[in-house]
């Protein structure tokens, strides 16, 4: 496309995703601008951007949530479009509206689509109304007076969720109707506390479920395609850490069914932009979970198997262009796995770690989407995700073998990361067999535990440590080697 309605795109984000977006923006010959908080002044994204505007806030995160400041920055650099990335303002309908009101293109869906999918209860009703599968449920808003009564009719076990929820907050599993009412009250107060909204819904809980999601693209001309599924069942604290495509859990028939369902939901919504329809899968059936109306962290695996650049597609759609291809033109080839590299200590309950990035070496022949660079400091100010390692293989076994090598070759010194843990994870027989579910890591705490240090490893570490520590090496060097040699004989 040569006639872009905007010449400059402002990235309202930071870290690896800002780098990722700028890469495509600049490769298209467009100008890439960015906003940044002082904590990110020396970051890779800010150095890469053609223009950068500092924004301020009570906290660094607060700066990236300040829509008015960001829109003002876009005006100052003459940006004709704003790409929100993921997180922060990416699913904020008010922000999308304000951007449009300022005469700037929002690289995302319409505010109404964000609102529809952001309200979990409305989204569910919308999907069910289209005849798509949702889990058996009871929704408080339908008739608050009979909510508990209706909840009792849903098959056990139950999952109570806040209507305004997300990220696993305030969710409660109920296995006995005796405690139903007490748990509803608890979920209500948590929902109130986290989201300022105590409305709930209850649905049938799938034991050991798998998380499978489908990438979709919709343009302003009513065209919708899916770009196949991603399986994201390996999670800790309801956060994904490994994502892959294709899913090892689906037969060809189920794969087609779940992908067509996702495309159908997007079509019914008249969806514009890249989006992800998430499903819960278990016992051979899948249910709609929610739809995310933005680029996902794990989008690169889809790019690997389909050959599409999703940020490019988002920009084309935002510019009003038609997709220009149909479902039959979207192919899936090979297997891709993404690993999220976190500054955290798996053996200490996945608590975040901090420290300087003294040495950084990325593995060769592997896509690494990274927001960090050597010399910077990893702080507690932001999410602890540092980078994503994306491996591609002919098939799943090939991808796992390459991942083993790539994870071992990812060198980051100065701040502890989860790479050794990820290597243990992919060697686990259940992972190798593709037999995982969202509770897999909780059920297998041994994977997170630090393995016992081997004696030869310990010796190597102490030897390396001793030889680079002057307090040890200098005194040793003071003894001339001739005496040292005599010392050898006298031993």
């Amino acid at each position, binding site marked *: 496309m040569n006639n872009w309605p905007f010449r400059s795109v402002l990235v309202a984000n930071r870290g690896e995703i800002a780098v990722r977006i700028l890469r495509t923006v600049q490769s298209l010959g467009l100008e890439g601008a960015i906003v940044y908080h002082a904590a990110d002044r020396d970051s890779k994204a800010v150095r890469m951007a053609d223009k950068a505007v500092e924004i301020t806030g*009570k*906290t*660094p995160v607060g700066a990236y949530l300040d829509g008015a400041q960001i829109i003002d920055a876009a005006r100052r650099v003459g940006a004709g479009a704003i790409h929100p990335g993921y997180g922060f303002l990416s699913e904020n309908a008010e922000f999308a509206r304000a951007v449009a009101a300022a005469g700037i293109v929002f690289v995302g869906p319409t505010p109404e689509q964000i609102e529809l999918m952001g309200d979990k209860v409305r989204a569910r009703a919308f999907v069910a109304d289209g005849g798509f599968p949702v889990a058996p449920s009871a929704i408080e808003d339908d008739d608050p007076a009979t909510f508990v009564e209706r909840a009792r009719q849903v098959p056990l076990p139950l999952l109570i969720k806040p209507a305004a929820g997300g990220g696993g907050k305030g969710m409660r599993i109920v296995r006995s109707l005796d405690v139903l009412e007490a748990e509803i009250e608890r979920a209500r107060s948590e929902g109130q506390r986290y989201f300022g909204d105590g409305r709930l819904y209850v649905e049938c809980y799938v034991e050991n479920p798998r998380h499978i999601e489908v990438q979709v693209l919709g343009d302003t001309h009513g065209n919708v395609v899916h770009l196949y599924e991603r399986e994201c069942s390996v999670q800790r*604290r309801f956060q994904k850490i490994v994502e892959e495509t294709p899913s090892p859990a689906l037969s060809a028939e189920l794969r087609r069914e779940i992908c067509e369902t996702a495309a159908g939901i997007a079509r019914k919504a008249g969806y514009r932009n890249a989006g992800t329809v998430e499903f819960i899968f278990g016992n051979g059936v899948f249910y709609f979970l929610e739809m995310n109306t933005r680029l996902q962290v794990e989008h690169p695996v889809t790019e690997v198997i389909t050959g599409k650049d999703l940020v490019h597609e988002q920009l084309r759609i935002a510019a009003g262009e038609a997709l220009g291809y149909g479902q039959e033109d979207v192919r899936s080839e090979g297997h891709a796995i993404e690993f999220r590299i976190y500054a955290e200590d798996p053996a200490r309950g*996945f*608590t*975040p*770690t*901090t420290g*300087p990035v*003294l*040495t950084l*070496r990325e593995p060769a022949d592997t896509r690494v989407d990274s927001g960090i660079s050597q010399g910077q400091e990893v*702080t*507690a*100010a932001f999410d602890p995700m540092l980078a994503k390692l994306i491996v591609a293989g002919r098939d799943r076994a090939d991808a796992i073998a390459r991942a083993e090598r790539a*994870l*071992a*070759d990812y*060198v*980051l*010194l*100065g701040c*502890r*990361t989860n*790479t*050794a843990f990820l*290597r243990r994870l992919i060697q686990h027989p259940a992972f190798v067999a593709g037999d995982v579910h969202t509770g897999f890591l909780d059920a297998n705490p041994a994977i997170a535990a*630090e393995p016992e*240090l081997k004696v*030869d*490893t*310990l*010796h*190597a*570490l*102490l*030897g*390396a*440590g*001793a*030889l*680079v*520590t002057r*307090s*040890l*090496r200098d*005194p*040793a*060097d003071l*003894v*001339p*080697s001739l005496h*040292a*040699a005599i*010392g*050898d004989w006298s*031993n």
Partner: protein
Amino acid sequence: MFHAFKLDDNEYDLGLSRAAQGYRLHLGDKTVPVELHPQDDGSALLHIDGVRRRVFIATRGDDVFVHLDGAAYHLRYEHPLARLSHQAHGSADDSVRAPMPGSVVAHHVKAGDSVSRDQSVLVIESMKMETTLVAPRDGVVAEIVYAVGQTFERDAVLLALAPVGE
């Protein structure tokens, strides 16, 4: 003279001396030959006990970081004198330290306040969870180091109590 490195929660005593070629590492009653040869690509070849391995090493102050066989390790050199004085004083009770990195959500006390052991003094947030921190002993608050909203690293001193007897 013997030195020590801390690795995770363990401490290892060791000594180093020159050998005809390279060095000797003394670990208890064991002596292990060791050599380290830096390479142009930033890695180094570590010869130890007859085996050669490629490692990456970085240092900052007394911290030594080593990437070995696909995993990263963190060693900390323990100064012999500092170890002795630490054992003698045991000043851990004079401060509240951060159990993990995060940010300050609320102060429950201010400098000059008298506090009693286990009284809640600060609320911090980390990993989207709030944690209340308590005073380690009875005493008077000497300083609250971080303002509400400020972020800190793990082990940072968040609140200091006035030393006993002052």
